[in-house]
């Protein structure tokens, strides 16, 4: 395969901890200097409620529940804008308890042909061990691999690959770069998690890129 054809990409940041969903409103983000005025004006508020909030600012969506914060963009050109927004929010709210962080990427690749598509499935999930299980030739539906981190931090990297529902003869690669704070105490707030977010962001992006290249044989 000559080069990877990315057709859809999204990047997301997930924090697990204890959150107050009702805070996360476009007007507040604008007031704190984290958004442009016109972004505040054009933001879509899907729901703001003490238990869940969901807002969309351009191509960035923020969804907050009591135990989970999510920021996501489907525009790869704005992934750093998303990161800065999340960092900005939790610099303002440093006492927010947060003990786990996920840097996720979802990328749909076009493999161009049915032949390439099947070849990848056969390479990643050989059919030999399945002989005698299925009468008709089986196919790979989904494959998840997980490895411990090699950067000295707590957590894991989980990679999932499966057929794309968006592209004919395409695959979706989902990478969950997961970090945890060992022996976390809620009174420590979110400073450690935000430090991980800022210091590992580029490495995480590089890892995503490399993972896709290795898996797809570029």
């Amino acid at each position, binding site marked *: 395969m000559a080069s990877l054809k990315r057709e859809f990409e999204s990047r997301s940041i997930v924090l*697990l901890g204890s959150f107050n969903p009702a805070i996360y409103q476009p007007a507040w983000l604008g007031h704190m200097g984290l958004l442009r005025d016109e972004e505040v004006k054009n933001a879509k508020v899907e729901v703001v409620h003490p238990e*869940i909030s969901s807002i969309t600012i351009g191509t960035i969506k923020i969804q907050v*529940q*009591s135990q*989970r914060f999510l920021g996501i963009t489907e525009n790869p050109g704005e992934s*750093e804008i998303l990161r800065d927004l999340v960092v900005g929010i939790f610099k303002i709210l440093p006492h927010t308890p947060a003990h786990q962080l996920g840097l996720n990427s979802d990328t749909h690749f076009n493999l161009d042909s049915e032949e390439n598509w099947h070849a990848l499935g056969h390479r990643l999930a050989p059919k030999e061990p399945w002989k005698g299980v299925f009468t008709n030739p089986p196919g790979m539906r989904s494959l998840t691999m997980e490895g411990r981190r090699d950067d000295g931090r707590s957590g894991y990297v989980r990679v999932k690959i499966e057929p794309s*529902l968006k592209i004919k003869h395409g695959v979706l690669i989902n990478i969950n770069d*997961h970090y945890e704070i060992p022996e976390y105490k809620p009174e420590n707030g979110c400073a450690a998690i935000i430090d991980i977010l800022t210091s590992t962001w580029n490495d995480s992006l590089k890892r995503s890129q490399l993972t896709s290249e290795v898996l797809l044989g570029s």
Partner: protein
Amino acid sequence: MAESDNPVQFLQSATLSDNLYLEKKLRNEDSSTDENNHILTNPKNLDDIIREVDRAIPAQFLGTVAGTTNANTEGTTLHTFGMFSKHDSFEVLQKWEGAVISVGTDSFVARLRDLSFYSEEDEEAEFPIEEISQADIALLAPGAVFYWCVGYWDTVIGQRRRASEIRFRRLPTWSKMQLEKARKEAEELSELLAWK
């Protein structure tokens, strides 16, 4: 199967109909708004929504928030397919992070770092100030960080145009109270160290 009996099926249809799943569910006939414009619903209904969102994830990658009730076991994985309504998309050809070195009358000079990982070496470039949007012009100063993205905008109606966008990093605004507190702390520290 009825819609409420099958969260996966429901999420699929909600995703296809503009992905306003939560809004659609919350704005049912039982909903109303309070004086703060919160959308109100009965607690059981909200719980049902969150459970439906959670349950849908392992079954299929339909893409919405996962793992509220089982957040510790599910971790921070997220499948994102279909979270947004259909919209214009941007294909990045290359992007850089820039730091402003100097600002002239009509242009500014910046050091650029390749965020597409094609090059490890920093570069310097000069940009016309008119490239910056009015919303970001106040942020232009030496030391300011910005992102420069070059790629293609693909519209939902199939048009493609080449695009170049500069966006400046936004950091939290310090309030007068915070600035005053920091100034007092600095003064106390200065006196402690006997700096004059």
